């Protein structure tokens, strides 16, 4: 047995040369392997590790949703929707016949522009950003190598041009540039997160390589705006401006009890969903543009006189033949009114009457009243670009200013300020700050006038919308409405107020409804109406009637007549 094993062993035994040769070959192979391993792991370590990481590791940005903007009834005014961005890898791109033209058509891009983009020497470029998902899927269906799509988000405004000035718009990077989008950008934005992940050969995410930085979504913003009324106000304003061939117009409707803004519209407007925007249309003119309010200031001037008890509602004042000279200034009325009461001065909007009342007050008393009514002060909105208005210190007033301020010249306000200035008449002498954000705390009103005075002025203002008043077109059937018209000449730099025939006017109206329990205050201004009348009552009055009549219906405000009948029933019961 032993000898047999030995024999086998002898059979497999290599010759000395073969042994050495095999050893040499193995050694050589080992050297090759060792040197290769040394080359890869020692000399090319960083490069290979980098390559490996690039294939298996990804840094993913976790998108934080920008908050939505809602109206008071939780209707969306602004939200982010998913879109696609079409990307291109110029090195990989290969077009079949006709594909390039199809792609250019789908991207709504000229073929020359597409060719320019194809020549860019970069690994990754955006062909077009924020493309509609349906179009993106059509592009991907072309199956062009090197063309792919990425998920992206686009801000959308369903209300389009109607609420554009309030909501504003956000840029491509998602940051707010105008309106509430700009004002509340920090709150709406949120913080994007990120995570580092490991993917396997089948491109599945299999592990988080670092701690996940969780995205924090932006907070939603709820406005006090009522989308339904916003639509009505916009349509009504648009029709008035088109009919009167005016340049522009603005309107604001507020809840007189809380100061909440229900509508804030401007026309012409812009569509925030489109990128092309004319700079002039972007401003929210309700809060940015100042104008001389004209006769809409008269109720405040008369309230000052009543408060100081220099006149009462029935005091008779001689307005003469419609011309009254104060120093070198000639004050005129549209027609002679003769001797009229303070109530009739407001009803007929007599400049001479108000001037004579202002003469009974000192400059300081007048200035103090206007200032208390918020003229020359911010409204509390802090809206981007809000103007304070202009009312000079009474110490700097010339004699002429003393009188002209009383009928709304030598003073500038915004339409929002004017609406706020009427809140004391609707709140028994308390002025309310304006509010646009539902979550802002309600501030307690500040008393600026006695209850008796504001009640008296409110009653006087009711006569303005009645027969013989200047704003009969603002009357709403079934409701008692108070208001004041204003038709002021525009001051043009270098030309002054212009010669007769060349003058431009601002037609305005501020109204309160219903008088029995005031709920709404609306202020409207129409810039330079050229067709038909340019009087505030005729041009702006109907806008008030249409919008407030709808608001009264929507908010189920009982008619004044019904309330009176109810009271009459109660009185009868008491008598029985």
């Amino acid at each position, binding site marked *: 047995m032993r000898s047999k094993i030995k024999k086998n062993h002898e059979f497999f035994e290599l010759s000395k040369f073969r042994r050495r040769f095999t050893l040499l070959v193995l050694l050589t192979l080992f050297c090759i392997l060792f040197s290769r391993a040394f080359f890869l792991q020692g000399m090319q370590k960083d490069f290979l590790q980098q390559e490996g990481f690039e294939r298996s590791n990804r840094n993913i940005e976790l998108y934080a949703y920008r908050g939505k903007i809602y109206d008071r009834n939780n209707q969306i005014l602004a939200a982010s929707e*998913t879109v696609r961005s079409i990307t291109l890898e110029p090195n990989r791109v290969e077009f079949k016949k006709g594909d390039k033209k199809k792609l250019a058509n789908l991207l709504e891009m000229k073929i020359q522009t597409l060719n320019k983009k194809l020549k860019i020497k970069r690994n990754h470029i955006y062909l077009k950003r924020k493309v509609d998902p349906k179009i993106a899927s059509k592009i991907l269906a072309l199956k062009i190598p090197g063309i792919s799509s990425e998920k992206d988000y686009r801000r959308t405004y369903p*209300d389009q041009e109607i609420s554009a000035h309030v909501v504003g718009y956000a840029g491509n990077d998602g940051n707010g540039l105008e309106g509430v989008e700009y004002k509340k950008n920090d709150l709406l934005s949120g913080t994007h997160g990120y995570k580092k992940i490991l993917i396997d050969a089948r491109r599945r995410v299999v*592990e988080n390589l670092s701690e996940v930085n969780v995205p924090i979504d932006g907070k939603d913003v709820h406005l006090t705006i009522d989308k339904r009324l916003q639509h009505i106000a916009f349509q009504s304003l648009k029709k008035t401006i088109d009919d009167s061939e005016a340049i522009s117009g603005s309107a604001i409707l507020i809840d007189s009890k809380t100061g909440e803004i229900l509508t804030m519209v401007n026309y012409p407007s812009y569509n925030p969903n489109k990128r092309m925007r004319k700079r002039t249309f972007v401003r929210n003119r309700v809060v940015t543009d100042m104008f001389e309010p004209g006769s809409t200031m008269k109720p405040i001037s008369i309230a000052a006189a009543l408060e100081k008890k220099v006149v009462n509602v029935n005091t008779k004042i001689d307005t003469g033949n419609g011309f009254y000279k104060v120093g070198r200034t000639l004050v005129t009325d549209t027609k002679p009114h003769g001797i009229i009461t303070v109530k009739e001065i407001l009803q007929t909007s007599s400049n001479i009457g108000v001037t004579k009342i202002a003469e009974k007050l000192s400059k300081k008393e007048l200035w103090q009243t206007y200032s208390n009514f918020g003229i020359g002060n911010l409204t509390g909105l802090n809206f981007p670009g809000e103007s304070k208005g202009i009312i000079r210190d009474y110490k700097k007033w010339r004699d002429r200013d003393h009188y002209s301020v009383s009928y709304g010249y030598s003073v500038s306000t915004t339409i929002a300020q004017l609406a706020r200035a009427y809140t004391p008449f609707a709140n028994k002498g308390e002025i309310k700050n304006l509010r646009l954000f539902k979550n802002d705390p309600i501030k307690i009103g500040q008393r600026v006038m006695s209850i008796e005075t504001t009640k008296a002025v409110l009653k006087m203002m009711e006569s303005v919308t009645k027969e013989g008043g200047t704003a009969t077109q603002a009357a709403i059937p079934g409701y008692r409405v108070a208001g004041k018209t204003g038709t002021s000449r525009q001051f043009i730099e270098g030309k002054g107020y212009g010669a007769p025939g060349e003058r431009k006017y601002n037609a305005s109206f501020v109204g309160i409804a219903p008088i029995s329990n005031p709920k709404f205050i609306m202020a409207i201004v129409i810039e330079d109406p050229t067709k038909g009348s340019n009087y505030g009552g005729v041009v702006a009055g109907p806008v008030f009637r249409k919008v407030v009549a709808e608001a009264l219906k929507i908010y189920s405000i009982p008619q004044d007549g019904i309330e009176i009948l109810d009271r009459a029933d109660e009185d009868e019961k008491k008598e029985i």
Partner: protein
Amino acid sequence: MKLNLILFSLLIIFALVKINAHHLYRVNHHALEIEKQKTIELKDEQNQLLIEESSKSGNGRISEYARNKLKMNPPEKKQKKLIK
């Protein structure tokens, strides 16, 4: 010798368990990632539907539809009667 064999076997078993646990972790993690992705997609869809709802229930669209298709026009001044 026997103890060495037992220990070696244990080592192999624990190594396999570890590999299996890691594999299961990766499978579950992948499933979780898919669910997270679905959440994002559903959130996007919800946003999209909210926007569509807001656009389609817009007063302007309803008003246009009522006037043009349903021929619902507000009464003229002569047709109105105030009941006191």
